[in-house]
């Protein structure tokens, strides 16, 4: 608009054109930079997939492609330690995710709505402490704590250890939804006789469902990926996949690991697509005011 006004004056036309060209150049270079950054971001992931099909040498991964093979996928599938640690990881991640969602949702609700201010303050402070304590500190603390209090290390301690950090993540995601809730719905429900528990189950929780599902997936992923807490709390019989992979890396990377990583990546991408579809479905059904996938993942 302002450009149009300027161009009506002949002397300024050339200058405007110069400025427009310069702006185009800035945009072009910004996009070029973005392309380079995306190469940087995705290169390691592409590398894993490519090298999963690499022959390697003497059963180890090499840094150059030595030939195409699919045998590592079969090898990964047949590797008993890989399989058992994968099973342990799944058995830990699933209950961790459920616990984190239940406790995180309770925290996310209470931090906004609890009638007593000290309770809200305490919960909020705890959530932020959880986010800023480095994982290594939490990991060693849990080890000292469980050994000193004579807990036997196993599934239970691993699940308890994994659940703490995701609780904060779930609570933050849920909180941002609770803040944005439309109170009129609950007022209407109350007028129709739904109070307390009924209102929570029938009115509030359904609105929080997308946030809870995002939280569930994030908690599962966190537990599934976690190395440090698992390293400290693992026992010879209860040991997770990242612990196994980390142990293997000391003797050089085996191609099995890349093959399995490729499979996991495929699962992640399928999961992503499912969430995308889920949001599209939800967005349409509720009139499009649901949070988008990216904004929920980013926690706002």
């Amino acid at each position, binding site marked *: 608009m*302002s450009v149009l006004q300027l161009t009506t004056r002949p002397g300024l036309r050339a200058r405007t054109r110069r400025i427009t060209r310069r702006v185009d150049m800035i945009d072009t270079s*910004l996009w070029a930079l*973005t392309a380079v*950054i*995306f190469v*940087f971001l995705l*290169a*390691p*992931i592409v590398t*894993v997939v490519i090298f999963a099909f690499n022959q390697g040498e003497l059963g180890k991964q090499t*840094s150059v492609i030595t030939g195409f093979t699919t045998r590592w996928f079969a090898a990964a599938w047949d590797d008993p330690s890989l399989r058992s640690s994968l099973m342990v990881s799944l058995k830990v991640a699933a209950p961790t995710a459920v616990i984190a969602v239940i406790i995180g949702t309770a*925290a996310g609700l*209470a*931090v*906004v709505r*609890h*009638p007593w201010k000290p*309770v*809200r*303050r305490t*919960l909020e402070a*705890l959530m*932020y*402490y959880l986010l800023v304590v*480095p*994982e*290594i*500190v939490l990991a*060693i*603390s*849990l080890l*000292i*704590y*469980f050994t000193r209090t004579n807990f036997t290390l196993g599934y239970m301690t691993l699940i*308890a250890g994994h659940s703490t950090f995701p*609780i904060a993540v779930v609570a*933050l995601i849920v909180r*941002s939804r609770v*803040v944005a809730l439309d*109170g009129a719905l*609950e*007022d209407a429900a*109350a007028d129709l006789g739904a*109070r*307390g528990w009924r*209102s929570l189950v029938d009115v509030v929780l359904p609105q929080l469902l997308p946030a809870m599902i995002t939280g569930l997936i994030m908690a599962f*992923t966190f537990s599934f*990926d976690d*190395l440090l807490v698992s*390293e400290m709390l693992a026992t010879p019989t209860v040991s997770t996949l*990242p612990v196994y*992979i*980390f142990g293997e890396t000391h003797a050089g*990377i085996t191609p099995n690991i890349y093959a399995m*990583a490729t499979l996991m990546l495929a699962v*992640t991408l399928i999961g992503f697509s499912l969430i*995308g579809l889920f949001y599209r479905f939800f967005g349409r059904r509720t009139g499009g005011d649901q949070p988008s*996938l*990216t904004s929920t993942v*980013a926690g706002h």
Partner: protein
Amino acid sequence: MSAVAAAPGRTSASSRAGSPLALLAWAFERLTPLLPLVWLALFFLGPLAFTIIYAFANATFGGVELGFTLTNFQQALSGFYLHIFLHTIVFAAMGTAGAFVIGMPLAYVLGRKAGRYKTVLAVAVLIPFWTSFLLRTLSWETLLAAGGPIQAVLNFLHLHSGQLGWIDTNKAVAIGLIYGYLPLMVIPLFVAFDRVPAEILEASKDLGASRLRTFLNVTLPMVRPGVFTAILLTFVPMTGEFVVPALLGGNKGVLMGGLIYSQYLGAADYPLGSAMAVLVMLLIGMVLIAFSRLTKGFDEVGAPA
């Protein structure tokens, strides 16, 4: 903060005393926070307290004797350990700066320029974020190896000749740190840029501001809280980072996280490791206080108004 200000309300109004059912609802509402509070006391605050107690305990041969001594801190703050501690601070700062320099233009393009490609590109940023950190870092071991893909690219571009000796050095650790934390840096920045209302930028343009002026005087102040959040989210976990130096740093690239780890699963000097952990927490506490003076803290970005 806005979330708390809006808090007292609806739910408490709905529970009027009288019937036993209403009483139950009243109690339920007040007792929900017990669940997170008890759980976190048991599995978060309790463990942290033990670490603090251990930091003042005496290390005996293969064991721990509770007491009060400052020798662990003295040891952690002298010689090689002090060197690693300072080295870690420098590395976390450099890694954060590196991620910021790369993340800022990316977030700007995603938030303000991408238009209808926004979602697709944002998901592309999230893919590494959702991929195992361990595996992503492991992949750099292949990429950076002597004779590997990066060497081939650099040789081709004449930026480097001969064998690439980056693996097991600080250079590899820096690359791994920046790479690993880039998504954590980009996401809050992207959200911040995305939220700047287009009308305000248009108004600035109509009032005659150049693009640079608009960016410096309008956009940048509006994304500032997001910038602080992004820097905190990157810097804080970097100070305790373990995986990257362990896989890419070799003996030369040890950081604090690895040092604490080895006190537990190597040297078995628990009190020394605990003292180091307490020092890392103190460092983070100091950074947080410094930041809370610069901004109102997480809250500005944590909850949308």
